């Protein structure tokens, strides 16, 4: 059954790598737009253990983009929908559903035992809490964020603190998405790129470090920026 299930993963993923994926444990912080697509893709790829963390229940305004939301589960916990979805799609994946908000107090516990963490959050301050927790846990953080037609992805290895360069000195809670909205295709695109980065990282493949990939879906443009090595969040080179 397992061989058949993952047949079309071959030979992009070798049988040995497929077996390795089954041993991997990831945690997705946020189970909304990005989080739903991340769960779907990582689960179908065959990642063995996926912890999903989100305190919220589905609302009608989630229906425009959140894969796990439907008219049938409005008012129900997002993480519960995640668990049910993966049970239906790939019961080989263990889903640990935690209906809690991530805070500085529990972040380290939420990341415990995981090989990689995915940022599917919806605000800036929580992302800095997550970056610190990933640094403490010494695991890679795959960052993604969207606003309207735009989005960005970045792999943050422990100690690189790349979110400091991306968000700078901003003390804002939110970004452009307050004005430009959050669209299904942007969320899907960014989640897919985050999944690709996660897969590469989990399989110990070399991927370019310190790159911020910007998506502008309106103009069909990708821009790859290099983030410099610096201890100061004031520094930036910007050239690739």
């Amino acid at each position, binding site marked *: 059954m397992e061989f058949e299930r993952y047949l079309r993963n071959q030979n992009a993923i070798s049988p040995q790598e497929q077996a390795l994926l089954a041993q991997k444990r990831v945690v997705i912080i*946020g189970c909304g*737009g990005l989080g739903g697509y991340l769960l779907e893709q990582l689960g179908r790829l065959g990642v063995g253990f996926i912890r999903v963390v989100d305190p919220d229940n589905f609302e009608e305004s989630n229906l425009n983009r959140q894969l796990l939301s439907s008219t049938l589960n409005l008012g129900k916990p997002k993480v519960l929908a995640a668990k049910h979805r993966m049970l239906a799609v790939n019961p080989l994946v263990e889903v640990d559903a935690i209906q809690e908000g991530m805070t500085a107090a529990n972040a380290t516990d939420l990341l415990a035992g995981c090989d990689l963490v995915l940022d599917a959050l919806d*605000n800036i301050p929580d992302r800095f809490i997550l970056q610190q927790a990933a640094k403490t846990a010494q695991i890679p953080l795959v960052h993604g964020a*969207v*606003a309207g037609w735009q989005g960005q992805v970045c792999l943050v290895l422990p100690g690189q603190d790349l979110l400091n360069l991306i968000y700078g000195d901003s003390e804002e809670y939110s970004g*452009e998405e307050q004005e430009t909205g959050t669209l299904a295709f942007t969320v899907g695109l960014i989640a897919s790129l985050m999944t690709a980065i996660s897969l590469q990282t989990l399989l110990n493949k070399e991927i370019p470090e310190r790159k911020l990939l910007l998506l502008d879906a309106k103009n069909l443009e990708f821009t*790859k920026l290099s983030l410099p090595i610096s201890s100061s969040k004031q520094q930036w080179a910007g050239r690739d």
Partner: protein
Amino acid sequence: MITVNTEESPWHAGMTVRALLDEKVFTFRHIIVRVNGEYVPEEQYDSYPIKDGDDVMVLHLMAGG
């Protein structure tokens, strides 16, 4: 010429961060600007000079998920 987010862009004498943002139609409210790596606070956009050859980065602040 200057570089804006890795792409070459024309430069002219007297160019400021504000002038560049207007020319490039960076009209979003939440943006981060760095010139040759140096963070430029919003209150300096009108006065901060951009010199020929400068490397400018303009990032939109995005946090949706």
